[in-house]
């Protein structure tokens, strides 16, 4: 346990130090890379609540990531064109204020998670995997055919949204926003895992019958976890869209779901910092393997196969040495 804590502290410090160093060395690209890591890690932290604690293998988390992204895109596009979002029954304007966008992104992805979760959690096991996958695709095809917001081509905004008191166009300042949100989410996730709710959720994963005997309904627990999980991933989606100043149906595709799942699993399922390490490794691989070969995903695939077949428990598992330790 001690070793894992040390590793966690090292990772989160490193994620802060690298951009700070890059800032002093005037390497803005490195800061952007670190920002990407922080945002994707946040998406993974969201998924990890459902997957790691609850044992819910959702292959449709791109839906929430994309909804967050589109919440940002739609609000910002309306603010940019001075077109109200709707005029009836009340006037709603677009906005380019990040806190408001985050609120909308979180709320709308939580709502989507509530609907999708309520339907999907009626099933379990492989049915659950496939249904979440299908719901993700439903939204993907919807976004493709939704021509009002760019359809297949996606939606660009010219200027990054604003955060009161900061200049988000400065890479380091935007990184710090994402970093702080990631830290808050990690703290929240750790609290959740130790709270009675998290313990009951983990118990429902391990032995459903016993949890029911004690008088707790696993369905409600899982649905709550799924909604929280979707909301956090949706927030990450809004930040990701802001990082790129662009949102497209790709954010909703099942490849994205697979990638978010990869972050969690490379790092270690159910480990608090699994998604952070996984996302960092993924981005580094993408960057360096991408520099070596255009076909870097072959190596990624091979590496992933090796991890699944031979290094169970992910990187944290390999380093801290215990097969399953939830936290």
């Amino acid at each position, binding site marked *: 346990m001690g070793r894992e804590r040390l590793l966690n502290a090292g990772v989160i410090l490193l994620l802060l130090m690298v951009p700070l160093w890059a800032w002093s060395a005037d390497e803005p690209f490195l800061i952007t890379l670190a920002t990407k890591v922080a945002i994707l890690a946040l998406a993974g932290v969201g998924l990890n609540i459902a*997957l790691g604690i609850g044992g819910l*293998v959702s*292959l449709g988390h791109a839906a929430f990531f994309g909804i967050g992204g589109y919440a940002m895109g739609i609000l910002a596009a309306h603010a940019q064109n001075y077109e109200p979002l709707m005029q009836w029954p009340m006037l709603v304007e677009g906005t380019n204020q990040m806190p408001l966008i985050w609120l909308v992104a979180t709320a709308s992805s939580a709502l989507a998670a509530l609907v999708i979760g309520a*339907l999907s959690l*009626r*099933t*379990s*096991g*492989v*049915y659950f*995997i*496939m*249904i979440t*996958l*299908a*719901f993700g*695709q*439903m939204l993907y*095809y*919807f976004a*493709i*055919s*939704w*021509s*009002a917001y760019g359809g297949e081509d996606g939606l660009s905004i010219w200027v990054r949204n604003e955060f009161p008191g900061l200049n988000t166009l400065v890479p380091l300042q935007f990184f710090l926003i994402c970093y702080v949100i990631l830290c808050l989410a990690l703290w929240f996730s750790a609290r959740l895992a130790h709270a009675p709710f998290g313990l009951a959720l983990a118990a429902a994963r391990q032995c459903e019958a016993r949890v029911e005997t004690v008088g707790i309904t696993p369905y409600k627990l899982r649905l709550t976890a799924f909604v929280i999980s979707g909301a956090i991933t949706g927030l990450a989606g809004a930040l990701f869209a802001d990082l790129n100043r662009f949102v497209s149906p790709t954010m909703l595709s*099942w490849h994205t779901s*697979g990638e978010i*799942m*990869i972050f969690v*699993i490379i790092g270690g*399922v159910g480990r608090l910092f699994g998604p952070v390490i996984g996302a960092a490794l993924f981005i580094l691989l993408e960057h360096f393997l991408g520099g070596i070969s255009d*076909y*870097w*995903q*072959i190596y*990624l*695939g*091979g590496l*992933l*196969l090796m991890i*699944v*077949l031979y290094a*169970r428990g992910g990187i944290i598992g390999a380093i801290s040495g215990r097969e399953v330790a939830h936290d």
Partner: protein
Amino acid sequence: MSLILILEQILNGLQFGVMLFLMAAGLTLVFGVMGLINLAHGALYMVGAFAAAIVAAWTGSFVLALAASLVAAAAAGALVELLVIRKLYDRDHLDQVLATFALILVFSEGTRWIFGSFPLFLDVPSYLSGPVTLPGGIQYPLYRLTIIAIGLVVATGLFWLIARTRIGIQIRAGESDREMIAALGVDISVLYTLVFALGAALAGLAGALVGAIQSVQVGMGEPVLILAFVVIVIGGIGSIKGAMVGALLVGLTDTLGGVFLPRLFGLFMEPASATSVGASLASMLIYILMAVILLVRPSGLYGGQS
């Protein structure tokens, strides 16, 4: 909107459904017999299409191309089973999802590496192109009719294989109790490789047949894969009959929805917005169908236990 158009669209839906069945049969067989969820099934569909396109370009023979798609996909399937899949049978679904997702990356990028990003072309042979006149005066492309026929023949063969032959009995027995069938002297690992190769061959055939209508390109298997998942979830995982019913249901819903929903909305909306609303709704229709079926029957139409 004429009766002929409706009949034509029903035939289109049937053709799409038959294709989906070829995909879904392999998925559901592999899941039913081995409890394995295989995301890389779409990659085998792609392998079949590429093999067919290459052999057709070399030899000019469509029949040889179809044979090549079967052989190549079955070989790729057997190889993948021997090297990777067999280590995953005892793992949980999460590991299976991840490993087969990794296989997709390897297959897609590998194919892109060898053949580049540009699509290949596989032409409909001259003796199968052009329309035929069906009873009632409907003009319908001969090639699509051939696909329906091939699909139905293969489906019948599959039902016969599973229900009537020795290997079918072993497959079904392996589905219910793998220790028992192993104890009876059946080499279970050979059986598993065979089932996997069979499912792969069906997917490869589907890829080749569709490849002649659409283009043959990297990533072509993935949209179909997702639809095949919808099919087997609707039909009930592990049930061949469910896969057949589900495939036809999805094929017809998708095709008819795409054609008629925009017209339906056109009855009470302006044309431009009716087209876009109708098209968005049509693209979601099968997922809505799936959600409704699962609300009523959580393990699908013909699924036993989930």
